[in-house]
């Protein structure tokens, strides 16, 4: 959210000078932060915008960390500099407000603030790049030399279409038109200028202190603020944990943060809430334990918002501590983190949670999923390398004209190749892509994530990060994938990959985010249009597997994941369980050398011997296995030494683990 907010602040100078239509990427219409700006800074009536954006929508980070705008060349450099300054100023303002809050609360700045400035000043790097398009228009050879011949090959093919027009029919402007796509080429050059400016990475300056405190528990690359001497540091943080609280935001037990960690924790209540006029308590950013238990809480009739209001705070860890299976009373000094948390849990809520556990005959799930979703080849889409063909863009009458001309000139085959080429990117098509991505991130994704009881962390362009209850994770990921390819958004030719990591509510969220990112990369590495799954059992195997969304050609998008998800219920409700998978996996070392039929026969045999398994289970699992094997043969970079059989077993085990909410058997 913080980076999205800072990027928006960088956009403000351009918005103020030229308005929202100057932006090519991202599209601005309907972006909650832009709507808020239109309301507050431009005094546009809320009725014009269809109402004031809700706090929930405002807090969805929907602005990617880079933007492209078309500006008058004489103001370009100044606007770029202003954008950088605006982002930098906003960061310093935010840091200043958090600092003031800490200073007001803890006092004695000299004792804790030694490393503050060094950490704050060195954290972000903002850059702007300017492309003087006029210079390229005046010198087409320069554009060609900057991009290289490979870029021009396809664009030149398309320009040959003009040769098929009867000279007497050619419009005059054709003679003056640049033979290749100026827009796609210019964007590619702009991206390369931005890359060239980043060739030397930004280096943060280290702490000026010679003796430093230990590292931040949230961001281990930075030192904690506070005294360096250990006992003084301990006293400082004990005091800070008891007193640093604002608008429901506080330090968690055991946390000792750097300046950056503290700013990330407290910037919403100290800055953003007043900036966008909402109460910090309205933000309702649930923690991992609450997201893990959301479906269970609803079934139990426990309303988190109501409990938060009643108790003036909410901590998802209360769910875990109040419903823990065993109470270890040996640790009477209160050091046990669970004891301490339960001590915090309001008595009535604790009783309600325990009663609900008895009534529902199951404990709240302790595992949740982190989703990282990313469109495939978006860079190529935005460069114009993917998209509709020339044929698809021509009016039927125009197409008929060209076909006729090709025949008349005896060049039907050449024309056919030309019509099948992807049409180079135009500004209009670029704007429509930006708009499609905006609608996807602002309209589709928040709705889908909310429908699946998830918590949206980021939705900007084609990127999505969300926390999801395990029971809904596969269905949610699949729904987002399907929406991405809907005609209202990116269309059926666009594909996407995602990673889902399954984490314990007490494990490191940072680790789970990294695992989800790695799973998404593995899905891309497998040939894209796939879903990677990483199951991070807290005290067991960390299993990783990639699966197709769809499975076989001709199936509906998401058909494979839907079929897998449909089997989940059997692992929970049925008696059959998944013991057979463990046995099958143990045998894969032998079975992998045999024909696929042998594997399927053994799978049928093991399922058949499982008590409570009905005949349809074997049929449905076999169908899944066949589709998985078929996809495996087409995938790229299958890990050396890994077979589809073993991978399929891991997949079923993982689905079973998710079905049980992470309950180990």
């Amino acid at each position, binding site marked *: 959210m913080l980076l999205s907010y800072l990027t928006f602040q960088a956009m403000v100078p351009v918005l103020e000078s030229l308005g929202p239509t100057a932006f090519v990427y991202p599209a601005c219409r309907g972006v909650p932060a832009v709507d808020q700006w239109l309301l507050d800074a431009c005094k546009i009536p809320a009725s014009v915008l269809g109402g004031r954006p809700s706090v929930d929508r405002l807090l969805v980070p929907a602005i990617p960390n880079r933007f492209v705008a078309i500006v008058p060349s004489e103001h370009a450099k100044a606007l770029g500099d202003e954008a950088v300054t605006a982002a930098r100023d906003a960061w310093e303002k935010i840091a200043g407000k958090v600092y003031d809050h800490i200073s007001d609360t803890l006092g004695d700045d000299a004792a804790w603030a030694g490393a503050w400035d060094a950490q704050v000043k060195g954290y972000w790097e903002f850059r702007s790049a300017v492309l003087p398009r006029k210079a390229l228009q005046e010198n087409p050879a320069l554009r060609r030399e900057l991009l*290289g011949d490979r870029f021009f090959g396809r664009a030149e093919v398309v320009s040959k279409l003009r040769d098929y027009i009867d000279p007497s029919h050619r419009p005059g402007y054709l003679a003056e038109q640049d033979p290749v796509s100026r827009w796609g080429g210019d964007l590619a050059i702009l991206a390369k200028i931005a890359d060239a400016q980043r060739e030397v990475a930004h280096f*943060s300056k280290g702490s000026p202190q010679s003796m430093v405190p230990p590292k931040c528990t949230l961001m281990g690359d930075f030192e904690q603020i506070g005294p360096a001497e250990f006992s003084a540091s301990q006293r400082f943080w004990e005091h800070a944990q008891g007193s640093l609280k604002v608008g429901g935001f506080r330090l968690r037990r055991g946390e000792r943060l750097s300046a950056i960690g503290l700013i990330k924790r407290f910037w919403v209540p100290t800055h953003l809430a007043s900036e966008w006029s909402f109460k910090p308590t309205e933000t309702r950013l649930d923690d991992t334990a609450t997201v893990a238990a959301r479906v269970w809480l609803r079934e139990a009739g426990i309303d988190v918002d109501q409990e938060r209001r009643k108790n003036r705070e909410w901590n998802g860890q209360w769910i875990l501590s109040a419903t823990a299976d065993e109470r270890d009373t040996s640790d009477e000094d209160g050091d046990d983190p669970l004891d301490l948390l339960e001590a915090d849990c309001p008595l009535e809520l604790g009783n309600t949670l325990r009663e609900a556990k008895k009534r529902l005959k199951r404990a709240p799930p302790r595992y949740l999923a982190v989703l990282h979703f990313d469109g495939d080849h978006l860079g190529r889409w935005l460069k114009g390398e993917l998209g509709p063909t020339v044929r698809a863009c021509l009016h039927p009458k125009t197409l008929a004209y060209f076909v006729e001309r090709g025949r008349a000139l005896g060049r039907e085959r050449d024309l056919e190749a030309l019509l099948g080429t992807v049409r180079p990117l135009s500004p209009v098509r670029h704007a429509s892509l930006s708009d499609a991505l905006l609608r996807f991130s602002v309209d589709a994704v928040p709705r889908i994530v909310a429908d699946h009881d998830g918590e949206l962390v980021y939705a900007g362009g084609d990127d999505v990060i969300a926390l999801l209850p395990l029971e809904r994770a596969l269905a949610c990921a699949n729904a987002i994938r399907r929406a991405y390819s809907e005609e209202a958004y990116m269309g059926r030719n666009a594909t996407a990959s995602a990673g889902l990591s399954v984490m314990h509510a007490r494990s490191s969220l940072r680790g789970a985010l990294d695992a989800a990112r790695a799973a998404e990369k593995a899905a891309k590495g497998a040939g894209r249009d796939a879903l990677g799954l990483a199951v991070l059992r807290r005290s067991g195997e960390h299993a990783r597997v990639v699966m197709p969304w769809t499975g076989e050609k001709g199936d509906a998008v998401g058909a494979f994941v839907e079929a897998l998800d449909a089997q989940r219920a059997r692992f929970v409700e049925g008696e059959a369980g998944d013991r057979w998978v463990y046995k099958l996996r143990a045998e894969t070392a032998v079975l992998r050398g045999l024909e696929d039929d042998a594997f399927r026969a053994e799978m049928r045999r093991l399922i058949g011997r499982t008590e409570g398994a009905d005949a349809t289970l074997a049929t449905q699992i076999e169908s899944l296995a066949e589709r998985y094997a078929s996809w495996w043969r087409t995938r790229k970079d299958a890990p050396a030494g890994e077979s589809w059989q073993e991978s399929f077993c891991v997949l079923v085990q993982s689905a079973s683990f998710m079905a049980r909410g992470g309950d180990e058997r």
Partner: protein
Amino acid sequence: MSAVTGLRIDTLDVLFFRGSRPIGPNAAAESGLPHPQTLAGALRATLLEAHGFDLRAFANARRKPASEGLGARELLASLGAPQGVLDLRVRGPWLCRGERQRVETVFFAAPRTLYRDGDVLTRSWPARGGGAVGNFLRASVELQEGLSMPLWRHDAGDEVALSGLVTLDGLRRVLEGAVPQAREVVAPGALYGFDRRVGIGIDGATSTVKKGVLYAVSLLALCPGVGFYAEVEGDERAASALFERPFRFGGEGRKAMARRVDQLPGGGFARWSVPAKGDARAVITVTPGWDGDRAIPSKLGPAVRAASVARAALHSGFDVARGGPRNTRSLIPAGSVYFIEGMTETQGSFAAPDDAAAGEGLFVTGAWTR
């Protein structure tokens, strides 16, 4: 007698290198690759012990106010550490492949000027000279202070920065002004992986399990046939105690075994550079190194015209004297590339003398063509 000795280091266990970042309950900590200082420290400690030096006395002395302002080397000397050990220079460690005393090849971080577009490798070049392209780029690309030439990729395909490692032959090809062949580029997964372990928290007072407190670590596990290569330069007799004996390396009492290699790969670090005509050279860093949190080291600074430096490698280390972590330092990572004019040194280190002796900031040079 002073000589360069090549070491092949085989791990006897999985290893853990963390850089002193905190490992708390419920955090999953993943090992990195060993830092030059880590190996140099391990080798020096082994040699000092082998020569009968009392390391505990050194730690105690470091904690005394009298030692404030003294560098580790001066303090060791004052406590009677053998000069031959103190004067040893260590280079590496680099991942290598081979068996026992034989090192077939050494692996280096891929130079940052390399890109991959599908199966095609390309590279970026400084836009130098006049002409429309040079003038346009110099006017359009805002460069960091001190640099005068932007780096540019002339093939605008779907290229991405090359990740992974290159072999010594691949590195040399880059130093000759070309790109490595496909077989000279290696994915990290072909050389090492991670072995995950879960531990429980134990209450120190009662020796009972702390409920809900689990520690998870991913330990570095090298593939069969893969080890580390390092070089030691100095008194051969002082260094001889390193060979064919396990030494502590990789945390928590884990050990590795060092063997003297039959032949220095590629003639050793001193011969890895490639001759260049004139005074224009490309410099590639082969170990990370620190120079005041700068991305362009001051030693190269005045001569650097263009550069490509990846995000800093953050490193902290542990202060034995205080029993606490050191400042986090932003290290220039291995694989950084500088295009320089007017520097005569063909290989060396940009780091401060003590850090350079521990193998930090090593660089090799080659041709700057195109």
